[in-house]
């Protein structure tokens, strides 16, 4: 009982403080309702969102150790294809970018580029605690700790590693968000590109993204 108190070196902030800090931390792209408000467009949007949520092309881009969970999710045992989730080979075709586990700076650079090459509406599912708060790499010299500082994230799946069931749960959440029109932050990313760029350039020292390739 007492031991826990002993290790409390940094005093915990209050809940309200944490909430405020969270908003300050990554205020840009958090589920802004993007459903077209025109009544005439609502049916079209509903149908399109229905198609989108049932047809998720997954960019099979294994960034970290979590990539090993993806084959299990997609193949016979858990069969994600019945939900319309299937692999896509290149970012041009893909809808969902899965960040499977820790991201070293070197990988982050590639991930950003891949994300920018994907077409709207695009979704990011971050996978494992490493993407949330650094996980076991919280003090690594080469691994980022919070993914949503660099690219907008739609769904986080916690766990180290999350099992395929958790992954499917995450996709169910993503589908829910898509149907409500709350997923897909590509537009927001483009709008707040300066903020994201500043964060990215803080980490990626040698910034060699040629301007013409990007937004």
């Amino acid at each position, binding site marked *: 009982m007492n031991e826990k108190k002993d290790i409390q070196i940094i005093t915990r902030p209050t809940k309200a403080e944490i909430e405020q800090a969270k908003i300050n931390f990554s205020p840009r792209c958090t589920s802004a309702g993007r459903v077209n408000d025109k009544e005439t467009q609502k049916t079209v949007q509903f149908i399109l969102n229905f198609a989108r949520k049932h047809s998720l092309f997954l960019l099979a*881009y294994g960034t970290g150790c979590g990539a090993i969970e993806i084959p299990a999710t997609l193949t016979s045992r858990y069969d994600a294809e019945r939900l319309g989730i299937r692999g896509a080979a290149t970012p041009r075709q893909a809808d969902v970018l899965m960040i499977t586990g820790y991201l070293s700076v070197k990988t982050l650079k*590639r991930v950003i*580029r891949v994300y920018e090459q994907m077409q709207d509406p695009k979704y990011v599912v971050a996978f494992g605690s490493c993407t949330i708060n650094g996980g076991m790499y919280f003090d690594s010299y080469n691994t980022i700790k919070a993914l949503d500082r660099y690219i907008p994230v739609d769904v986080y799946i916690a766990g180290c590693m999350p099992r395929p069931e958790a992954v499917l749960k995450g996709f169910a959440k993503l589908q829910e968000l898509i149907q409500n029109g709350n997923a897909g932050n590509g537009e927001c990313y483009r709008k707040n590109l300066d903020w994201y760029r500043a964060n990215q350039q803080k980490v990626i020292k040698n910034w060699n993204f040629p301007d*013409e390739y990007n937004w």
Partner: protein
Amino acid sequence: MELMIFFLIITAGTLITFFIDDISRKLTGYAAFLTILTGIVYYASIPMGTVWQMHLLGFDLKWMRSPAGDFFAWIVLGLGLLSLMYAIKYMEGKARLGYFYAAFLVSLGAMTGVTISRDIVSLFIFWEIMTWSSFLLAIYKAYYGVETKGIKYILFSSMGAYAMLTAIVFIVHYYHTTDLNTLWQAGAFGFSRHWFIPAFMLFGFAVKAAVMPFHVWAPGVYTRTPMAYTSVFSGAMSKMGIFGMLLIVAGLSRLDIGWIRFILGWAGGITAALATLQAVRQNDAKDLLAYSSIAQLGYIVTALSTGTRMGLMAALYLAVLHAAFKGALFLVAGAVEKQAGTTDFREVSGLIVRMPWTFFTALISVIALAGVPPLGGFVGKWLVYESLITETHSYFLVIVIFFASTAAFLYAYRFLFGLFLGQQEHNTEDVHEASWWMLVPMLVLSLVSILTGVFPGLVFKPAAKALSDLHLPSDGWQMSILHNAWNNGVDTITVGSTIVILFLLTAAFITLKGRKNTRRTGTKDISTSGEIPQPDDNLNFQSGFFQPFERAIGKPYRWSMDRIWTDIGTSLAAFFRFLRKIYTGNAQTYVFYVIVFLIILLLFRKQIF
């Protein structure tokens, strides 16, 4: 007399062009262009059937503007005019312009002469002038390697010429005339009489048409001649070989064409297949086009060999189309060479942005070459297949031809991909579009490919006239409906309009849908697994493009006609070296032979006499 005046115009123009080079280098090209323009205008005004006869050195020379010759003359003159127009800018700033244009005009005049000759002596004379003037152009760029290629060309041409000369000597010996009409009526080109006459003549023509195994001169010469002339070389001069064969076939068809048809057909088929295979593996646009040219002539020879209504029409149709698209493609290669410095696929790519009109020409010409409907090449291919299937029933030859033309897709794509598509590397940044003097001829030629695809009758009508002039089967050709011997057919207008309408609809859909959200990016913005291509990275896939195909083919790639000819040459040299041991050139040896001979005579005189 009018025909003589035509040649006088060309000769005078040639002389003016040659000497105007010393006065003003800029005017040379225009002078040549005006000369041929005047020549064409004058030629068009000559009434059909005009005859000019002359008695020279014991031979009756007879020239005539006939529909058959006219058909080929227009190929020559049209392509010549366009190439000369192109040459004005293409040759700008190059050395020895007077030499180039003079030889160019002489060869055009000589080719026209071949088409109007109605006797074999003037045919032969014009033929030799043509060979000689084109040889001058082949060695125009005098750098290392050109001479050997040029010598190869002149060697094979002289072999052909000697064969023709021999045939002419025998013709005069047996028939006492040189007039073609008389000879046809006498059946002089029939194999049953004197087989060597048509065989030798065919050999002479086959060399010029680059038929296997006499094609070895073609790749080297086609690539090393200035491209403005190569388009004439490949587009028009090789047709002279076809014209000559047509003259022979015209004499054949009424008598016997069984086994010669077989040999010619398979020679054409094998030429097409093997040359296509060679074209597939080339890494330079000019080499690729040279081999492709040989392959296309293979189709024409095969079509010609059928001797039937559709086959002959296919040959004539393909002759026009080949002049149009291959002429255009050589001009394209020249434009790229002029603007970008090289036509090597590994060094230059992504020119579609820099040279869009050139790309358009190349695209149209390549589609026509590949034989995809609704462009002109398709009609030619269709006629070849249908004549082989329905008229002569050469089912296995059809497979060979089909293999060649399917494999032609490979090099057709390679040509476009290598020069115009692919990564836009920064070494081509300062390349810009060719001048309009060069573009207009190319666009005119691609227009021919487009028009003939929908209205093949544009070619059928004059071709049918040409065939009936030679008393060959030529009936029943319509403007836009093709029929085979089993009465099945293709309606080219329906085909063309269907494809165009569907194309417009789909293109409109894909362009208008989400137009605002569609963005164009550069070729460096590609999926590279997140890796960022830097300006210096070479992402071009050019070397060994069809390597899997080459591996699948395997053995034929190790065959080489060149090597066989070299072996023949080496063995001949060895044989002559051996002879040289007998004929040593030493007087004492000859005296010794005489003495030995006398001794033998003395010793055995009773047995011998």
